[in-house]
């Protein structure tokens, strides 16, 4: 890696820019990586995937992963901008959480307060049924939901959450009425499906892979099929323009110097392009995306509009 850096520097032949980097040796100590949830969740797992690569691309600095769970992430997000803004503190952020929470309640922060520098992956929504389910295809599912409105039950994690949103968006597109049963955490939601307490689950590609043969994946909310779920069609293939899921990114306190923000974003970008990292993410069911600082404004504007339209379906009032 070091030789690579030298190579880049000498090939650029612009001593100035190299000097500028040299003058600020950022990052020059361990970076705090705060997860706004408890350990063991997908935010934690993906941070753990990044951890070894961070050392590789940051010039030897490590990240210290910490947990500050509470109020679905709001406890940590409301404190982010009060933290040390020297670039050595960053925090995971999640969509749709950071858009919906401030709409819902006095969450202690506003969506735009959170200075997300990079959205690095997303977990696409997936509609799953038990392997013994009579629903063999998405068409079976929608037909049943239309035949007896409200009788088809779908489990998911939390209310006004990513799963609730996917359910609302799909119901609207398909003209169906299903009953959403919220559970505490993905584990409980999956248990309800495996125990046949509910007809289907709004989950993610990750849970589809984790549950394996025990479930059947009816469709995924991706542009193209997921490499590890080749038999599961996309909603688009079946005529529904549904793409979405939970997006995960990294934010830093707003007062962090711009050059350090850019440098951090650069490290995350490099990790995101490491073939070994991509392979790990894909194997676990994630989909790597690259929304860096240059695309951030455009992306957030688009996503806020999309969520704003769906919010009324969930009974949220957009302020």
């Amino acid at each position, binding site marked *: 890696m070091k030789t690579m850096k030298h190579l880049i520097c000498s090939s650029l032949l612009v001593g100035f820019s190299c000097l500028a980097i040299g003058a600020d040796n950022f990052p020059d100590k361990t970076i705090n990586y705060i997860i706004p949830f408890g350990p*063991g969740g997908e935010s934690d797992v993906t941070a753990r995937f990044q951890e070894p690569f961070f050392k590789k691309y940051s010039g030897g600095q490590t990240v210290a992963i910490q947990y500050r769970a509470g109020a679905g992430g709001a*406890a940590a997000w409301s404190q982010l901008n009060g933290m040390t803004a020297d670039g050595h503190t960053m925090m995971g952020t999640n969509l749709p959480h950071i858009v919906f929470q401030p709409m819902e309640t006095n969450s202690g922060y506003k969506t735009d307060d959170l200075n997300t520098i990079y959205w690095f992956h997303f977990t696409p929504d997936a509609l799953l049924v038990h392997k013994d389910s009579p629903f063999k295809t998405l068409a079976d599912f929608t037909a049943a939901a239309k035949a007896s409105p409200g009788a088809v039950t779908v489990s998911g994690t939390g*209310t006004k959450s990513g799963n609730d949103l996917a359910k609302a968006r799909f119901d609207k597109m398909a003209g169906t009425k299903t009953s959403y049963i919220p559970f*505490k955490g993905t*584990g409980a939601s999956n248990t309800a499906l495996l*125990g046949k307490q509910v007809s289907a689950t709004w989950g993610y590609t990750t849970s589809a892979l984790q549950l394996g043969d025990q479930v059947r994946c009816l469709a995924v909310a991706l542009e193209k099929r997921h490499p590890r779920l080749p038999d599961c069609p996309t909603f688009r293939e079946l005529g529904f323009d549904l793409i979405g899921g939970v997006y995960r990114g990294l934010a830093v306190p707003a007062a962090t110097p711009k050059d350090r923000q850019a440098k951090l974003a650069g490290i995350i970008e490099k990790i995101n392009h490491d073939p070994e990292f991509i392979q790990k993410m894909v194997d676990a069911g994630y989909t790597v995306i690259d929304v860096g600082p240059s695309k951030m404004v455009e992306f957030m504007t688009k996503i806020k509009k999309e969520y704003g339209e769906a919010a009324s379906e969930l009974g949220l009032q957009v302020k």
Partner: protein
Amino acid sequence: MPGIEYFLNAVTPFALLIAVAGIVAGVVIGALPGLTATMAVAVLVPFTFGMDPGIALIALGAIYMGAIYGGAYSAILLNTPGTPSAICTTFDGYPMAKRGDGDLALTLACLASVIGGLIGGVFLLMLAPPLATVALRFGPVEYFWLALFGLTLISSLSEGSVVKGAIGGCIGLLLSTIGVAEVGGDVRFTGGSTALLGGIDVVSALIGLYCVPVLIELVATPTPHMQLTGRVASFRLVEAWRHVRAAWFNLTRSSVIGTIVGILPGAGGSIASLVSYSEARRASKHPENFGKGEPDGIIASESANNATVGGGFIPTLVLGIPGTPPDAVILGALMVQGIRVGPQLFTEQADTVYTFIYGLIIASILMLPIGLLVGRYAFQSLIRVPKALLAPSVAFMTVLGSYAVHNNTHEALQMVVIGGFAWVMGRFGFTASPIVLGLILGSIAEGGFVQGHMIGTAKGSVLMEFFGRPISMVIIVMLVLGLLYPLLSRRAKKKERVNEQ
């Protein structure tokens, strides 16, 4: 025995070393109030990434097992459960310590934990795939009834006044509603403050309810913090073994209850030890001794909570559904390792799974010497420490522990407020346990009720959903019996007395 060929992988010097290190780390973290088994596992997960998956699992399993057992130290010596699983260990452990039998209580806890851990591990080894289906038979409605059943235990647990116990339980239930509702997302009783959005945390409430009143008493009374009768033995193994042998049925029953509760996602060590404790008391010939330093109480609580370790791994490994909160962290670690859990795990990755299971069983056995040694050290240093040093150090630990829950001052503040409240309530004869029960079971009951009601509505009959399912019916019968038990036993006693006269 399945997978016996992998036994040797679990007894290599390195595997044993890892198991010992894991147990020691777990015991120490678990013994500190506020630092739970989940935290112990989470903190030490990164160290396992470089290891072979089987060994990594042994390390995590050993830490988990050690932490659950470690909770007994502070429960017995300080009346503060080191982890929520050890709540019931305080009931008899602390009275024993106060009358000078702390060493015996610690030895009992160690033996019971080892045997509970072994029984849970053997179930995991022999019957994991069939037992995993138990987890799936429990739907929202069953959790609702199970939580209600747990609440009826208040009547058999509360010392003295049942009415005061019931009031305490209601306070706990009310506390459990604070914050953003898990199901439905409504914001309740936060008074507009962000600090309460996350609700009242069980661990910080535990520290406040149990530890703060003890601390205040410690400072407010001039007597020494522990009565010492005669010579202090380091551990009373022979005497403890006699108790354990006499209580073999209690031990087996509690371990089986612990294993089954461990299998149920959403329940955990605290509920396992609670159910076992109340069953032990109900079956005992001297129920009146429970809560006053009865060895059977410690045996029930400690064997049950350690049996949840093996039980909890059953749905984790077979279904990919974590049985207990620490299992969720371990499941995350497995995903990072690239291991896909599921029924096929036992055939496709037999070496990893069986190495781990044997490792877990060996770790439970290793807990015996380690536990006795650490217990001896903890007990002796606690006796020697002057009160003037003990009180501030424990006070410091309570703040540290509650802060560590979410690395946030909110929980530390909650702990202090709840602790002050508990002390005042204690003056009026209210005990902490019903409040904790209400707090833990309230959210389980609420979630189960709302989900069950929604599913029932979708299916067309709410009544059928709640009363028409076989497991629900069994729990309802247990619930009714549990509710009537104090009345029936009182009547039986009266009759006995009449007969004697």
